[in-house]
């Protein structure tokens, strides 16, 4: 326990110091934080509950649009803002910007949670691949429909309020980095707290055999919806931060980007190891480094490389990095290994 505390404290200190140690990578580090949030919260469904969702992107995009809309709509007419496109007809003062951002992030986190609660009962009644395809449809439908709504910019996109003129580019990077880092810390603490309660055992029971879990008297639907709402909360928050960071929201390419972000979060969790606490964190970090490497070295071919990467990960590493470590060093994971038993199993294979 003591060792863990030191580990967490050192990670926290490193996280706080990171933008000053690597000042050139602030934006990349913020994106990494967002990716980790998405992977860790996807893991609540995909890993622990066994519901492989492609639809968490719905909450992410929703949070993105809501945060930006609130930030603009609190002070200026929203329709005129989007109509004027990127041109700065209205300028936020620093106070307005930060007030709007704070209110926007609260809305961006709360509304997707409510949405998840409302649609949860219908969607979570589906199982297995039907759930996967249904949520995929949900994400893409949201993107297509939001691309037709005029007030949030329709096809031409939505420019989020530019960062006010305090401290320039450095301050902007630091602000968004700390936003995303605190969101990440909040998400990680929440998920860790959840995983140490009975709730996690219930989720695992649902994954292993939902019918039996129900027969044991667990109200599976209630817990499934709660799990989804926790995910939606953090996905919305991450989306809101990402919207401000990117500075421009497009319906299908940035917000409801089911083909990229929606698959990335699944992939990161699988790469790290589904159903573990640290797996998605490691997976997201490795994936982000890979991705940026592709972007730098295979410019133009990055998506081709990405497609190959997906296929390779899914076929050859379905257990992920944590799964591989577990196979290799089971003692470290607190598993009691009986040598004779292990040998017998090898022979059986």
């Amino acid at each position, binding site marked *: 326990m003591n060792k863990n505390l030191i580990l967490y404290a050192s990670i926290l200190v490193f996280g706080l110091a990171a933008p000053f140690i690597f000042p050139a990578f602030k934006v990349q580090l913020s994106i990494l934080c967002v990716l980790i949030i998405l992977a860790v919260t996807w893991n609540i469904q995909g890993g622990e509950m066994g519901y492989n969702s492609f639809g968490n992107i719905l909450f992410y995009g929703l949070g993105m649009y809501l945060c930006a809309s609130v930030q603009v709509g609190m002070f200026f007419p929203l329709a005129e803002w989007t109509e004027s496109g990127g041109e700065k007809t209205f300028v936020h003062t620093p106070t307005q910007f930060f007030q709007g951002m704070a209110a926007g992030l609260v809305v961006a986190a709360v509304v997707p949670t409510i949405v998840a609660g409302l649609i949860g009962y*219908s969607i979570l009644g589906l199982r297995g691949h*039907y759930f996967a395809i249904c949520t995929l449809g949900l994400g893409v439908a949201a993107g*297509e429909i939001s691309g*037709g709504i005029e007030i949030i910019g329709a096809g031409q996109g939505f420019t989020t309020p530019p960062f006010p003129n305090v401290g320039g580019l450095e301050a902007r990077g630091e602000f968004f980095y700390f936003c995303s880092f605190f969101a990440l810390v909040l998400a990680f603490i929440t998920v860790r707290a959840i995983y140490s309660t009975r709730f996690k055992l219930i989720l695992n029971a649902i994954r292993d055999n939902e019918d039996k879990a129900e027969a044991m008297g667990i109200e599976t639907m209630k817990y499934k919806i709660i799990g989804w709402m926790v995910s939606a909360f953090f996905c919305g928050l991450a989306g809101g931060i990402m919207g401000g960071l990117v500075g421009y929201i497009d319906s299908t390419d940035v917000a409801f980007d089911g083909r990229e972000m929606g698959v990335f979060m699944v992939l990161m969790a699988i790469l790290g190891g589904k159903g573990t606490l640290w797996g998605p964190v490691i997976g997201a970090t490795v994936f982000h480094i890979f991705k940026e490497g592709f972007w730098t070295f295979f410019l133009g071919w990055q998506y*081709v490389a990405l497609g190959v990467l997906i296929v390779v990960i*899914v076929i050859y590493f*379905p257990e992920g990095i944590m799964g591989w470590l577990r196979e290799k060093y089971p003692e470290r994971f607190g598993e009691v290994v009986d040598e004779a038993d292990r040998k017998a199993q090898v022979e059986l294979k």
Partner: protein
Amino acid sequence: MDFMVFQYPMITIQACLDGILLGVLFALIAYGMALQWGVMNIINIAQGDLVILGGYIAYFMYLYGIHPAWGVIVSPIIMYFVGVGIYKLVINKVVDRDLFISILATFGISILFMQLMNFAFGADVVLANSGYGTTFLFDSNVVLPNSKIFSAVVSIVFAICLVIYMKKSKLGRAIRATAQNARAAKILGVDTEKVYAATFGINAALCGVAGALISITFTIHPYMGLPYTIRSFMIVIVAGLGNLPGVAMSGMGLGVFEEFADYILGTEFRIGSVFLLLVLILVYRRFKLSRKREYLK
């Protein structure tokens, strides 16, 4: 707007005819989907991208001065080998695994194909002009391009040929046997590995035919694949596996639905309404089954 159906009967007829002709194409793609789903227990997200690839083959024949209708013959032959190639490289490793693994793996293939097509053919919307002219009905109030009629007829011919092939030929019998019980088929001497490869190849060939027809009648674009996958998935879950008349009927129904959504809601909501319809159908089925304490599986 609400009473469009009664106020402008010609638009209604136009939308219905367009929808039915389009739906036949959807049904052809969905038949391929049902085939591989039933036989190999795989949901292929790359289905739509195979369709678009088939379309580009016909488009290239058109660019080089060959009439694109020949693409209906050439495209499936090329696509068959593409399909077998994909099977040998990727699919045979995910056949026995969880369905979600196959969804993700084919998602990867889909992204790969999308981008490769984007590189090879550019991001422009293209179509192969067949030069078939148009038919006018009802005092030229209803306009039907002949290419649409051609594509519907060709799809029906291909579907009938395939059904006969599946019923009569040796490979068709092997495929059906594997679909019923792969293990028993293996014991009785069916080389299931070959059957799987052939099934995936046939599916890709069907996609090739459909793609060639789509490039003649509509337009193709490297990123347009996913809606075709979702449409075929929807048709299959509405009709059920192995229900061929059902596939044809729900394909046409989907085509008509889309044309009406296009007229009433506007073209920008067309794809969105397709995806939303999928969600609604699944949720409807879920509530219907939950009354019997069952679930979709």
